[in-house]
């Protein structure tokens, strides 16, 4: 009777050893020419590239990497932006993250790092991370340590329909807030919807308040207010008041409070189909406009968020962020190899050419063909100040409160004063 038990235990031990051995071997065998081990490593790659052409290009790149590394299989898991954030929250709580995962850096990444779930890449990426654009690496540097490798860097600004601007008699994109409000009035007078906004998703609305706060209080103020847990300063109230000036003009599309961002009836589609003249969005906007709507082609233009008269911030200070990949702690060497592959010049040139991202490898800059992306790149290079997306820079509870309060301001249920109070309270609750 004892025999089968013993052999079963023996079998378990053997298979466990085999399993360990396989991981160890494949870990060593990451340098493609290794070859004597017959174990295959499967690495999971979680990203948010659910729209074409990015989706297809990334899948092809994964295939290419697999071809170069026959012992490695890449399993791609893709989720839409908001769903991904929710899923990652659940995974973070469960204590295990995917091998390679999308990250925006900032507060969310810090929480994952503090929980001990993210691999410190400082040494493991030394050989290639040094050559990347310094500003692009900023969001993933926490306490001087590297926790992520960027593949995109960008900023938020206004994307506008040149033809609709021309129809309304606007010759030059506005550079001041009062000029911007005038442009909105002129567009409205022409019967054009000036702005598209995804009210259901809240984060696109937050961009307005954040940029206005940067313009009234200066680029460093938002981070400082977070560190001091005090957003009640006058410039922040003024930011809300300026946003209210805009909301009072009723510049948004019909039903914007219920609109999503990337659906066929959402914000991007409204601009892409020529139904609204502008949207405040990141460097990915042209791709999403063309995917969810028709896309504007040559009619699409970009201008930076205007300066506010009398404000401390300059028009050259940018609000934005990029996209990067981080690894779970203890991820196999193959995952690091993949990051290296993904940050190589060859890959970056392809990404810039085909998916509209901004280069993170300086040598790939020449691959930018789109004049709008060139304009964004020029803004980024000449930036005199930088602030990461608030819902990423701040701890989630504070970031969400900013989104929520600004959404309430836009919907008319909170005053500019109340917005700053709510955010301050959320910041104080977060020790």
């Amino acid at each position: 009777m004892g025999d089968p038990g013993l052999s079963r235990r023996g079998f378990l031990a053997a298979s466990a050893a085999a399993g360990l051995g396989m991981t160890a071997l494949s870990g060593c065998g990451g340098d493609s020419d290794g070859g004597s081990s017959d174990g295959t490593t499967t690495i999971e790659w979680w990203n948010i590239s659910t729209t074409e052409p990015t989706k297809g290009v990334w899948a092809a790149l994964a295939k290419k990497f697999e071809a170069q590394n026959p012992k490695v299989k890449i399993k791609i898991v893709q989720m839409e932006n908001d769903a991904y954030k929710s899923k990652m929250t659940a995974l973070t709580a469960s204590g295990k993250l995917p091998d390679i995962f999308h990250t925006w850096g900032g507060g969310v990444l810090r929480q994952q790092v503090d929980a001990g779930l993210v691999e410190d890449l400082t040494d493991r990426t030394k050989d290639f991370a040094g050559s990347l654009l310094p500003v692009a690496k900023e969001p993933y540097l926490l306490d001087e340590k590297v926790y992520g490798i960027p593949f995109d860097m960008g900023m938020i600004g206004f994307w506008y329909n040149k033809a609709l601007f021309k129809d309304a008699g606007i010759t030059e994109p506005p550079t001041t807030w009062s000029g911007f409000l005038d442009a909105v009035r002129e567009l409205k007078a022409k019967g054009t919807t000036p702005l598209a906004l995804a009210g259901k998703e809240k984060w696109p609305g937050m961009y307005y308040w954040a940029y206005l706060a940067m313009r009234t209080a200066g680029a460093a103020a938002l981070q400082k207010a977070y560190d001091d847990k005090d957003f009640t300063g006058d410039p922040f109230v003024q930011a809300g008041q300026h946003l209210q000036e805009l909301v009072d003009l009723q510049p948004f599309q019909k039903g914007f409070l219920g609109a999503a961002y990337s659906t066929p009836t959402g914000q991007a589609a409204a601009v892409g189909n020529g139904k609204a003249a502008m949207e405040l969005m990141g460097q990915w906007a042209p791709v999403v406009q063309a995917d969810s709507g028709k896309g504007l082609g040559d009619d699409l233009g970009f201008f930076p968020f205007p300066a506010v008269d009398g404000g401390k911030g300059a028009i050259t200070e940018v609000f934005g962020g990029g996209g990067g990949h981080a690894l779970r702690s203890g991820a196999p060497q193959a995952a690091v190899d993949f990051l290296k592959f993904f940050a190589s010049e060859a890959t970056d040139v392809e990404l810039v050419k085909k998916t509209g991202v901004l280069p993170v490898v300086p040598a790939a800059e020449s691959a930018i063909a789109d004049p709008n992306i060139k304009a964004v790149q020029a803004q980024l290079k000449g930036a005199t100040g930088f602030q990461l997306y608030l819902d990423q820079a701040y701890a989630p509870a504070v970031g969400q409160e900013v989104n929520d309060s600004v959404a309430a301001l836009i919907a008319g249920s909170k005053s500019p004063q109340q917005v700053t109070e709510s955010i301050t309270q959320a910041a104080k609750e977060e020790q």
Partner: protein
Amino acid sequence: MTSTFLPDKRTGPDVDVPPMSAGAAKGRARRRALHWLTAVAFQVPALVLFLVLVLLPILFALYAAFFRWGGFGMPSDYIGTDNFTRLFQDPVFLGDLWRCLVLVVLSVAVQLPFALAMAVLLNQRLRGRAVYRMLFFAPYVLSEAITGVLFSMIFAPDDGLADQLLGHVGLDGLGGEWFADPSMVMATLFLVMTWKYFGFHMMLYLAGLQSIPRELTEAALIDGANAWQRFRSVTLPLLAPTLRISVFLSVIGAIQLFDLVWVTTAGGPDHHSETMAVTMFQYGFKRYQVGYASAISVVMFGISLVFALAYQRFVLRRDLEGATTTMRGDAK
């Protein structure tokens, strides 16, 4: 005594029965032990699953509700009942309670009578009756998420099917911003809920109606009762057990409503369609305030539990008693 013994029945009177004696008693004891062992062996997996997947999480949520806890590691920052006091001062949560009540009242007062009317109608002799039944039941088969996506397209302002249709028949005035309008969002949501769930309740009622003996209706007919009197005095009282169960399911469903709201409006605009479950999700999975979210879930659990117990005690008691007496009668 031996004549009522189970194996005798099974073997039947014609089979040669071994003599009953001390051996039989011993066998019986052994069989009883075996019976117990079998029962335990079959129940342990289910009990373990129930314990690990249902009971422990409930207890843990109850525990976590007394902590300020971000979801990492174990809760350690004990704050007493702070989460609950904060909860009952939060205008969004108080709004959730109000909206929950509105949905419950609307479901019971509008959706269920509508389902009943359809059930009575489709219980008549009617050409294509089965087709209608299937059509009305079909929405229930769809998942809530798919229903949500479908209706956010239908109710898209201007471009959506609803507004286009109304526009084409000259009723533009009735169209609007549907989900995007704070004053209209609950009505729209309720419309979708009704579309999805009335078919299910209709099916329940149809089953109930078919179990009402025809003789009773015929007797009432002979006594000169008109259609309304027959419905009021014969159909409705006999359908009461089904109605009570249906109300119960409907109320519990309204308390826990999540998927549909999350997909169509995410609780917006400006919290005007937020439910308790949506608020809980926002705090638990968006803000990482898992302690506070646990407090919300505990309150939800409490409301459901109190309602379920009170309903069973005061409303369903007659039905349950009926069920047990029938069973007792069968045993005799």
